[in-house]
Each structure stands twice: as structure tokens, then as C-alpha cells.
């Protein structure tokens, strides 16, 4: 079920209302059933894959906590998770490359990737790793464990939660609070604004530009910048809706974005962008490899491996791997600046340069192929500044103007508020005006075409 669908408009209030009407002891069951309905709305049969994943990691947790062969059970659990990901997500990519290199004719599966598999498999893995590390007790109640993996707000696109944070909240559900409801609804409204008004509008232009080879440097630059804001508004919008929906039920999810385009350098960007994934890679890949407190060669290796895997996590394709490696190169090049501790640029310029670097990398992330990415880059440097419109894309001057206005509105609002906008709880009239305007803008300028969220494909 998509957040931006009529079904969710009905699903959400019913589930939230029932959540507080059901006795606290049975709330896990209510949420688990609701999560099954939510996930089953995509492809019902894929619930079995999710149940399989839950069974594997639930059992692994118990075996690991049993004390014998801890490492073996952890490895088996991780292999099972990666095998599942490998079969559905990476098999065809690797086989296609082997076929191309060797001339072999190995079979491609062409399976549809279960929606959000990368998210819930990583969340599930973090449980077994934390149990192995002794930082989390094994969960004996299979229902609660299933709910940890399947909790519907963050099931298909995160934030990727840690067991220490989510389990206590699931075990001890909070009582109803108007403040939580208001905070949650406000965040959801803001998330819907970002998705429906900003992301899907920018997507009309960016999709058209990336799909069409015939456009000028100006249109390519606009398309790349629009995609930078589109992917931010799309993914952070999803996270806001997820965090808001959970907040309505008194559950606090991890902050996933913290105004990343205001970062002054690439390291800061990764502390603010998709925080739950970047901390996952930091804690379970980068630091176990040795982190930064190692010899230079090893540090380079650690960064490259971490970002190679991060790229691969996003998608089975050379474009995603290139995107990841490009960020690794950015970080490696940035390190000497930190060591010198020189403050050479004004803040505004640092932010602009960082944003440009990130936007350049998004070309690879968005392009359907390396060839398409290359065409886009060539177009940027073609020197053809003739026209900004894209053939066959209905995007007039006014659409362009209001798109830019909405980008600034989004950035300005986020610049003057905290990540969860909690301070608005204490400014009642500002809050009322803010919510009124956001709802009205969604009604008149939202793109209601059930466009999927970009990160669902991962």
C-alpha cells in the first residue's frame, strides 16, 4: 500500500484508532495484522518471503543467545539474508555480467524484487548482529519479533531501526496523547507536501529529461538539480510520513534526514542523509573493517568497500556502484582538508560546492544506464544554452516557476524548524496557519497519480 493512495487514507485512521482501543497486551497483534495488510497490498505472496526472513532471524537470535556456536549461527543468519537479497536483487545483475564477459548463456530469473527487501533484511540483520554482540537480548515472543521486522510505517523504505530502540517501544506501548497525534499528523502533512507537491512535480521534468536524449545544457542542468531535490523530497517525505504515522501511535522512529543539502562538506552530508542506512554501514561494515584509525591504504580500502556496498545496496547496476564509488572518492579527497583543519571557504560556498558534488553523483543514481549518464554529462558540457523545455513534456514556465518556489519553501521551512518540527507544538497560531497552508497547497498543487516512492525499488 502506498502512503499516497486512497487506501492509505482509509487504512491509517482506522489502524491508529483501533490501536488505542485494543488492550495494550494485544496491540502487537493488531499492528502485525495491519502490517500484513499494508505489505500484502503490494504482492500478497511476497508475505511468505517476509515470514521466511522472520523465521530465520528469530531462530538465529535464539540460537545465538543460547551460547553455543554463536558465530556459526550469526554467519548462517547473515548468509540466509544475503542469499535472499542475492536471489531477488543481484542474481540477474551478476549473471548478466558473467554472460557478457564469458559469452555464457546462464539463466536470468527476471523475478520481481519484493518491495523494501533491502530495508527489512538489513533491519533484521541488525537484530542478529546486536544479539551476537550482546547488546540486545534475544526475543522469545515470535509475534513481537515479527512486528519488529514488519512494523508498517517503516516496513518498505525505512528508517532502518535498531532493536534496542524499537523493541522497548513495542513492548511498552504508550497511551494516547493529543500532542503525539498533532506532532505525528503535522509531520505526515509535511511529508505529503514534500512527496506530492515537490517531488512528484520535479519528477515530471527530471523523468522527461532523463528519458529524452534531445535537450540542451540548460535543460540537463535543470533536470539534474530537480532530481537532487526530487529524491530528497521523495525519500525524506516518505521518512516524515513514516515517522509521523508511528508518532501518532506513540512510537519514535529514528531520524533519517537532517537537512542534508545544508551540509558544508561530504562527510557532513553522510551524517545527515539517510542516517539510518549510513549508520548501519558505519556500525556493521566500516568500523569492523577498521574505520579511519588505520593506515592510509587500509583506510582507502575501507571507504571504497563501504561505499561500493552502499551503492550495491541501492541497486544492482553499475550506475549505483559508480554513484557509491564517486562518494567514496569525494570522502577520500576531503580527508586532507580535515587534516589541515583549514577553513578556506565561506559557509555558503561550502554548502553550494557540496550540493553540486552530490548533484553530480545523482546523475549516475538516476540514469537508467552508464550510457544515459554519459549522455547527460555530455549534454551539461555541450555549451548549448538554447532552451530549457523538454520535448513531449508538459512543463510550462509557470510549472518551472512554482517548482522553484516550492523548493525554496521546503528548504526555508526546514532551515527554520527542527527535524521533527516539535517546536510548533508551542506556537499554536503559527502551527495552525502552517498546517492550513500545507493542506491547501497539497489539495491544489499535489500530483495525485499514485506515483511510487523512489526508494521502494530498493
Amino acid at each position, binding site marked *: 500500500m502506498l502512503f499516497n493512495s486512497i487506501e492509505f487514507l482509509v487504512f491509517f485512521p482506522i489502524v491508529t484508532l483501533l490501536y488505542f482501543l485494543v488492550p495494550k497486551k494485544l496491540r502487537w497483534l493488531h499492528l502485525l495484522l495491519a502490517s500484513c495488510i499494508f505489505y500484502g497490498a503490494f504482492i500478497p505472496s511476497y508475505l511468505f518471503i517476509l515470514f521466511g526472513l522472520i523465521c530465520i532471524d528469530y531462530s538465529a537470535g535464539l540460537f545465538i543467545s543460547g551460547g553455543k556456536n554463536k558465530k556459526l549461527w550469526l554467519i548462517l543468519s547473515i548468509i540466509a539474508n544475503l542469499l535472499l537479497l542475492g536471489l531477488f536483487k543481484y542474481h540477474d545483475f551478476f549473471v548478466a555480467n558473467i554472460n557478457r564477459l564469458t559469452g555464457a548463456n546462464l539463466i536470468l530469473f527476471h523475478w520481481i524484487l519484493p518491495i523494501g527487501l533491502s530495508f527489512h533484511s538489513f533491519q533484521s540483520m541488525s537484530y542478529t548482529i546486536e544479539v551476537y554482540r550482546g547488546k540486545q537480548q534475544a526475543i522469545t515472543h515470535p509475534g513481537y519479533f515479527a512486528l519488529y521486522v514488519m512494523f508498517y510505517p517503516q516496513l518498505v523504505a525505512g528508517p532502518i531501526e535498531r532493536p534496542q530502540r524499537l523493541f522497548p517501544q513495542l513492548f511498552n506501548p504508550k497511551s494516547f*496523547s493529543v*500532542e503525539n497525534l*498533532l506532532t505525528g499528523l503535522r509531520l505526515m502533512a509535511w511529508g505529503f507536501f514534500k512527496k506530492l507537491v515537490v517531488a512528484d512535480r520535479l519528477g*515530471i521534468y527530471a523523468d522527461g529529461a532523463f528519458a529524452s536524449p534531445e535537450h540542451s545544457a540548460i535543460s540537463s542542468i535543470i533536470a539534474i538539480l530537480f532530481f537532487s531535490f526530487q529524491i530528497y523530497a521523495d525519500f525524506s517525505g516518505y521518512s516524515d510520513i513514516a515517522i509521523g504515522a508511528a508518532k501518532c501511535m506513540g512510537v519514535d522512529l529514528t531520524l533519517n534526514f537532517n537537512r542534508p543539502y545544508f551540509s558544508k562538506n561530504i562527510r557532513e552530508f553522510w551524517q545527515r542523509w539517510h542516517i539510518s542506512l549510513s549508520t548501519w554501514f558505519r556500525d556493521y561494515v566500516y568500523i569492523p573493517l577498521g574505520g579511519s584509525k588505520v593506515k592510509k591504504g587500509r583506510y582507502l580500502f575501507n571507504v571504497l568497500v563501504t561505499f561500493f556496498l552502499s551503492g550495491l545496496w541501492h541497486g544492482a547496476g553499475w550506475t549505483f556502484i559508480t554513484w557509491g564509488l564517486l562518494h567514496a572518492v569525494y570522502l577520500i579527497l576531503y580527508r586532507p582538508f580535515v587534516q589541515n583543519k583549514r577553513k578556506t571557504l565561506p559557509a555558503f560556498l561550502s554548502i553550494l560546492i557540496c550540493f553540486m558534488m552530490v548533484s553530480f553523483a545523482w546523475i549516475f543514481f538516476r540514469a537508467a544506464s552508464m550510457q544515459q549518464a554519459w549522455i547527460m554529462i555530455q549534454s551539461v558540457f555541450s555549451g548549448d544554452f538554447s532552451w530549457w523545455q523538454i520535448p513531449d513534456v*508538459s512543463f510550462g514556465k509557470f510549472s518551472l516557476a*512554482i517548482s522553484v518556489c516550492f523548493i525554496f519553501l521546503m528548504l526555508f521551512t526546514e532551515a527554520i524548524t527542527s527535524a521533527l518540527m516539535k517546536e510548533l507544538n508551542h506556537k499554536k497560531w503559527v*502551527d495552525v496557519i502552517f498546517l*492550513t*497552508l500545507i493542506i491547501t497547497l497539497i489539495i*491544489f498543487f499535489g500530483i495525485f497519480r499514485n506515483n511510487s516512492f523512489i526508494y521502494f525499488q530498493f
Partner: protein
Amino acid sequence: MKWWRIILPFILAMVLSIVIGHWFDARYKKRWDILFFQKTDELIKKHDSYDVVLLGNSRVHFGINPYYMDSVSGYSAYNFANGGSDITDILLTSKLYLNHHPIPKYAIISVDPGMLKKNESLKTLYHYLFYLRDDTMSRYMQLAGHPTLPVKVIPFLKYAVMDEYNRTSLFIPGQPYPHFDHNIYRGFLNISKDTGSQTQRLYNTGRYMDDQIWQPSLPLLNELVSVWKEKGVKLIFVYPPQKQQATFLSWKFYREGIRIFDSVANTQHIPSFHFERDASFYNGYFVDDIHLNNPGATMYSIMLGDSLRSLRSSN
């Protein structure tokens, strides 16, 4: 924390939306008045009597001027065609006309294979959302996938249904169409003033090369014929002019489409006027392969009026 903090913004947003909705309605109607609203108002809200009803797609909308046609035929005609119409829209227009007007003498349907492809024009004729109080309109729009009930109850929701182009079109200032030589008259519109003008190019060569006949359009075509015949209206098929070197459609698709119209005309004994090979329509009368400029439309309308007069004389 009080409940009003949650409820009040929704109420205020609704009130604000109603006000903005009215303002948007006025602007949208002004923007699309000549192209769409005048003729749909004529179709549904007015009840005038016409002798001839002109139906079809852009080749009629921009191609047959009732002013010149009437001057030759002696009849009174109205051009109810919409650019991009498919057979469903033409059927809907026919039903709406018969529901709201006295029975005409003739219904002229312009033949174009493009009307038989899966066009789904009702999905994008958003101005019809302003007329949902009409049951026939509401039923067809619902079948086209529009959320008619919510839009009927909360009219400003129609802007949430529209595509980006239509929604932002209401902010384009001023009257977009120049007036000259009766170029805007009873549903007809053509702004390509000069012979050989390319200012109103509507059609990209080769764009519809992969078109196929949409099979459900065949029973709809038969229903269209029945709707008029049952009321005793004389139906006429018109094969409109096109460039002699036209390369516009997949020829397989074109021939198949024409064959279907020919077959219906033969079995239902519908008289036809053929202009598709008329050499008087030289290239200077076209803005693209199939659309006439205003001088071309004037000549076509006069010739069509003449054909209609001849038909009356022969009867």
C-alpha cells in the same frame, strides 16, 4: 494540548480551498472558454435548435467553420468537435446533444482512423468535470476513471485530478486566441491566418506509427450510428482533406480504420462526402499533414456546405 489544534487547520484549509476553488474555476473557465467551455455550455446548458451537428476530432474543431458552411447550405450548424476526441467522446457529445436540444436534420461525423485508437480522451478533457451535474456526463466521466462523486461533493478537488499542464494553464494571462475572419464561430476555432502558415502545427509526422485499432471502439461506433438513427436524424460521414503526400499514420492502421468506416457506411446506408483526395487542397492549405489553416478551413467549409445543399436538392 487541545483537539482544536488538530481540527481547526482542516476546517480552515477547507474554507480556504473553497475560496481558492472558486477563483481557480473563474480563471480556468476564462482560459479555456473559447476552446472548450463555450461549446460544452452550448451542449448542456443551452437548448438552441440547429439543423446540422458537426462531430469529430481536431480536424472538425479547427477545420469546419459553420459560418461559411451555413452561408452556402442555408442550414444552421454548430461545431461540437473537440481536439483529440475519440469515439467515446463523440458518442457522449451525441447523447448530450440529443438530451438537451431539439432533434437536428443532420449529424455530420468526420471520419478519422485516429478516433478508433485507444485514446481515452475523456481522461484528459478536464473541463467536463465542471458539468458533472449532468447524469450522462457524470456516468461517462466515471467510466473514464474520474472520481466523480468526490468532485461533485467537493468541486475544488477537480484540480487535484488535473494534470500539471491543465492545472497551471489557468495562470497563463490574457485571451490566447486572436479574432479575424470569423475564425471563432459556433465551436469552430482556427488561428492559422495565412496560407502555408505553420503556426498551429498540431501533429508530428510519424508520431502515431504504432497505432492500432482499439477493438471496443467498433461497438461504440455502431452505438453512435444507432443513437442518431433512432431519433430519425440523417447521418453523414465526411472524409476530410489531407495532404496528398501525407505520411502521417501507419498505412496499415489508416487503411484498416477507413475500411471500418466504409463498412459501417455501407451496411447502415450512410451517405459519405469524400474530400481526402480532393486536389484543390494543396499543401498551402495545411498546417501539417491533416490539419487545415484558416483559409483551408474556409474552403473546406464552403465545399461541405455545397455538398450538403446538393444532398438536400437530390432528396
